[in-house]
């Protein structure tokens, strides 16, 4: 208690320092006056009286000082003095200060930005209650709707039936929730009832009734989904995400309880999810609506929800405290094997041996389903390394700058020491200067990192609205970065000061600056060499990534994207039955052809360079099943022309390929290569699914070239394309159950670019049916570009970092060379007086600058070769450092080094010998 009061008194004094000084002054003057009067009254002469008074009192200045010190703020005062002096010193050398602060800001800022992204993407848990107790059954992404046995037996995605059995038989789980794996491919069409809102596409996820309870969440308003919502016959309900509620409905509380038409079915919104909750996985378009698994067959016509052999759910559970993971994992694996072995639907006779391999892996579920984490992990780690290298270069730069500065101030320090400054005081002053520099750099880095993180997010997730990642750097990251810069500053700022303060001041002052060897120290040169080496590695790396991106983008995808637009739509969501889609597709074709400038209107289940794939086993009639698969799509007769795929043999799809005509397929060249021997004529051959019933399903009518679907990296991608409405002879299902007849894409080819094509498309579709809304509209080019987002981000960042490294290295080289020149001014003067010509001096200075760069390159080149090996998996068809990229890197570095060396070299050459010698 007393200590606090005491501190408060001290604090009050700190704020009233001036008053305090004045009071003390007055008090002491009074004392002295009174004593003097007393002496004078006693008859002492004035001068003698004053002497006696002072003798008796002591030194008033010292006393005042001592009184002041009593309050314990002297350290703060001198710190302020030091800081003020430091700022003045830095202000006097703006070149040095700006360079140092920029170096720190860029080095630290870039790092903080990358680490912020890494932290948000890789390390952060879901914003749910007690994420540590969440466990995921499964360890990888097997999206989205699968059938059949897995080769490796490691299951991560499960059927509704399996989920229910797991939930019932494992009391270790307090709660076990299930969630749709592939929600991103199936947005719904939603419209609020009783408003003039247009039907629009909303991302929606189907989850088990206990989903929100498992995560321990409570509603922002209304209620969340409950078990009662997830039973057969329950009224259709949905929970809206907070961000959708905020963005589209301005947090209107009447949304809760209101009816929405979702895929033309009436659904009641029962509540709003918590503000921070973005679903069970990090994704660039988080769900806007959450609905129950039981409602999925009604809303999305997804029959597979009820089929025991179709796997489509991810599982996350909350385990009871003290549950051991390993026994639970063994138990679940055994249960899964049991489920599979007692049912005939999962494993065909051929797959029976795979049953032994069946297992599940339990992984931490606190971060949810880590799909994005998986896809960004290697990229982010690489970027972390690169940013680390840049920081290293930045630190080397700061070290160099401070060393140069410190040595340049040798004389000043000697003078101070000679005038009586203690070594501690001198070192403290320099320390303060370094700290002021580091703190300023740190503050600038904060700004840079905010900007950089925004930029990174834009690069990583272009076009997405609700990325649940925020640009604010985490305090830990900034703390680390600023700490590192402080350390560098302190280490390299104080070392020269310490060294110079040990020298006898007289010696230092006498020796002056006349020297031939006193150029940059070995340490400085080493730092420059290191910088050159690192920046060469980064530049070469940037070249490799640029080359990789270039190769990807200029890969011949065997398509034509000029004046083409891709429209995603969803007839099922718009309320069409499978019996009606034929008429719908014809209407769409007709209506779009009425638009002036329209050339082709292709309709298909999927388009080239889109993240979407359906595939299945294929057997050629008359041949044994080879356990090979092929992707398939449905398309109308205009589709091949619309995307620019050329027919190389036979024919394409024709109008005559109606449901009543013979079922045909057009296959691609890879299909022919996969399933036929060389030289064999595929035209007229039949194929189908393996087994006795359907191998004659399709007759091959033509062959098309290998247009790229999914990914440029997917080589020899066998595909077959079937007419949009045809069904196979072996398919005995009633037409209502044939969900494949719903397709999702329209490809428009126009004679010229049409600026408002999107608006025209929306009008045309809603003119057919107001519920036919556009799920996604893009130019074909944009769709293709989207598939290279990762690569483009990497390439741009590598270039950015490479340029940054080059800049920093050049600054470092310049600093050292300039310093050398300054130190050798008189030497150069003598040389010139003795007859050295200008070019000789320039050459001499440049030679030493270039030597350092060359050594750096000699170290950097093998490192670059080694580095490319490390990142090869992230490059496309680039296996080693190419001559071009390396040449470019070497050239850039040489030019930069030349520039950095030439400026001081020219300054050296313009030295006037007489002046240089007189300068001391």
């Amino acid at each position, binding site marked *: 208690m007393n200590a606090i009061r005491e501190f408060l008194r001290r604090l009050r004094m700190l704020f009233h320092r001036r008053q305090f000084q004045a*009071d003390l002054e007055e008090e002491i003057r009074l004392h002295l006056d009174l004593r003097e009067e007393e002496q004078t009254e006693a008859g002492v002469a004035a001068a003698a009286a004053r002497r006696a008074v002072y003798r008796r009192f002591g*030194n008033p200045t010292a006393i005042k000082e001592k009184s002041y010190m*009593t309050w314990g703020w002297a350290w703060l005062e001198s710190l302020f003095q030091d800081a003020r002096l430091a700022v003045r010193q830095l202000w006097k050398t703006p070149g040095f200060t700006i360079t140092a602060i920029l170096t720190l800001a860029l080095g630290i800022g870039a790092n903080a930005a990358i680490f912020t992204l890494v932290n948000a993407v890789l390390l952060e848990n879901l914003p749910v209650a007690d994420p540590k107790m969440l466990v995921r059954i499964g360890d990888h992404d097997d999206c989205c709707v699968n059938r059949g046995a897995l080769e490796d037996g490691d299951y991560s995605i499960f059927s509704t039936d399996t989920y229910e059995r797991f939930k019932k038989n494992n009391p270790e789980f307090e709660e076990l929730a299930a969630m749709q794996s592939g929600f991103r491919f199936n947005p719904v069409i939603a419209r609020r009832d009783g408003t003039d809102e247009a039907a629009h596409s909303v991302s929606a996820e189907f989850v088990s009734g206990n989903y929100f309870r498992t995560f321990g969440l409570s509603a922002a308003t209304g209620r969340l989904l409950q078990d009662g919502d997830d039973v057969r016959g329950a009224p259709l309900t949905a929970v809206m995400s907070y961000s959708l509620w905020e963005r589209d409905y301005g947090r209107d509380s009447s949304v809760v309880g209101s009816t929405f038409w979702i895929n033309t079915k009436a659904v009641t919104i029962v509540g709003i999810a918590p503000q921070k909750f973005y679903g069970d996985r990090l994704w660039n378009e988080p769900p806007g609506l959450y609905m129950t698994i039981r409602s999925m067959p009604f809303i999305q016509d997804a029959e597979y929800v009820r089929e025991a052999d179709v796997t489509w759910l991810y599982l996350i559970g909350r385990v009871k405290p003290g549950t051991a993971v390993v026994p639970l994992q063994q138990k679940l694996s055994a249960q899964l094997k049991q489920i599979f072995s007692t049912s005939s639907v999962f494993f065909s006779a051929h797959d029976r041996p795979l049953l032994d391999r069946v297992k599940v892996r339990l992984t931490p579920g606190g971060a949810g389903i880590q799909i994005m984490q998986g896809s960004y992990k290697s990229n982010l780690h690489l970027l972390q390394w690169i940013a680390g290298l840049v920081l290293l270069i930045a630190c080397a730069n700061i070290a160099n700058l401070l060393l140069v500065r410190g040595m340049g101030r040798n004389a000043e320090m000697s003078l101070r020491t000679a005038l009586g400054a203690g070594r501690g005081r001198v070192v403290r002053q320099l320390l303060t200067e370094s700290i002021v520099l580091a703190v300023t750099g740190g503050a600038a880095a904060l700004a840079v990192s905010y900007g950089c993180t925004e930029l990174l997010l834009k690069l990583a997730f272009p076009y997405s609205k609700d990325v649940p990642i925020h640009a604010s750097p985490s305090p830990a990251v900034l703390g680390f970065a600023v700490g590192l810069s402080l350390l560098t500053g302190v280490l390299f700022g104080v070392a020269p000061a310490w060294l110079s303060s040990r020298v006898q001041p007289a010696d230092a002052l006498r020796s002056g600056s006349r020297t031939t060897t006193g150029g940059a120290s070995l340490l400085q040169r080493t730092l420059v060499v290191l910088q050159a080496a690192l920046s060469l590695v980064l530049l070469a790396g940037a070249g490799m990534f640029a080359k990789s991106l270039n190769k990807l983008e200029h890969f011949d995808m065997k398509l034509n994207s000029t004046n083409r637009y891709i429209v995603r739509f969803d007839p099922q969501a718009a309320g069409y039955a499978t019996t009606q889609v034929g008429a719908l597709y014809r209407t769409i074709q007709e209506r779009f052809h009425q638009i002036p400038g329209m050339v082709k209107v292709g309709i298909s289940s999927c388009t080239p360079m889109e993240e979407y794939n359906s595939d299945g086993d294929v057997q050629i009639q008359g041949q044994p099943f080879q356990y090979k698969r092929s992707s398939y799509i449905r398309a109308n007769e205009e589709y091949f022309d619309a995307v620019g795929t050329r027919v190389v043999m036979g024919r394409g799809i024709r109008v005559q390929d109606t449901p009543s005509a013979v079922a045909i397929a057009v296959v691609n060249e890879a299909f022919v290569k996969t399933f036929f021997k060389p030289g064999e004529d595929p035209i007229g051959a039949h194929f189908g699914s393996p087994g006795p019933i359907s191998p004659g399903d399709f007759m091959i009518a033509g062959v098309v070239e290998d247009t790229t679907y999914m990914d440029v990296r997917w080589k020899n991608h066998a595909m077959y394309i079937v007419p949009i409405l045809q069904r196979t002879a072996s398919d005995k299902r009633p037409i209502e159950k044939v969900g494949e007849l719903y397709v999702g894409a329209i490809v428009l080819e126009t004679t010229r670019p049409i600026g408002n094509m999107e608006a025209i498309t929306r009008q045309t579709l809603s003119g057919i049916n107001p519920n036919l809304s556009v799920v996604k509209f893009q130019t074909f080019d944009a769709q293709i570009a989207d598939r290279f987002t990762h690569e483009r981000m990497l390439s741009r960042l590598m270039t950015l970092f490479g340029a940054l490294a080059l800049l920093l290295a050049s600054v470092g080289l310049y600093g050292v060379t300039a310093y050398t020149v300054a130190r050798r001014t008189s030497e150069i003067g003598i040389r010139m007086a003795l007859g050295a010509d200008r070019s000789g001096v320039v050459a001499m200075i440049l030679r030493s600058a270039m030597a350092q760069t060359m050594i750096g390159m000699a170290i950097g080149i093998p490192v670059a070769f080694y580095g490319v090996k490390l990142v090869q998996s992230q490059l496309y068809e680039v296996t080693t450092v190419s001559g071009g990229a390396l040449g470019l890197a070497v050239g850039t570095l040489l030019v930069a080094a030349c520039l950095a060396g030439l400026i001081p070299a020219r300054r050296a050459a313009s030295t006037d010998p007489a002046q240089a010698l007189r300068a001391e």
Partner: protein
Amino acid sequence: MNRDEIPPGTLYLLILKTLALHGELHGYEIANSIQRSSDDVLQVEEGSLYPALQRMLIKGWVTAEWGTTAGNRRARYYKLTTLGRKQLALELSQFERVIGAITRVIQTA
């Protein structure tokens, strides 16, 4: 006349006692009072009075207020607080213990 320096550490005790006797005093008066009470034997190093007073202010043993002297001049008057009285008692007992011990040592010698 020969004057003795006060023993180290007893300056606080002297100031506290002086203030306890006289109530409010300013620095000059404190110095004079100590000198007079000790029959001119104890000479306060007058300057050192002030840092000591500052420390006592921090500790909260005394408070200071500006007032006017008899000669109509502004002066800072110091006054004991309750805490100061307690401190005085503490320092007195401590001092007596030490002096007692020293006396015993001297007398046995």
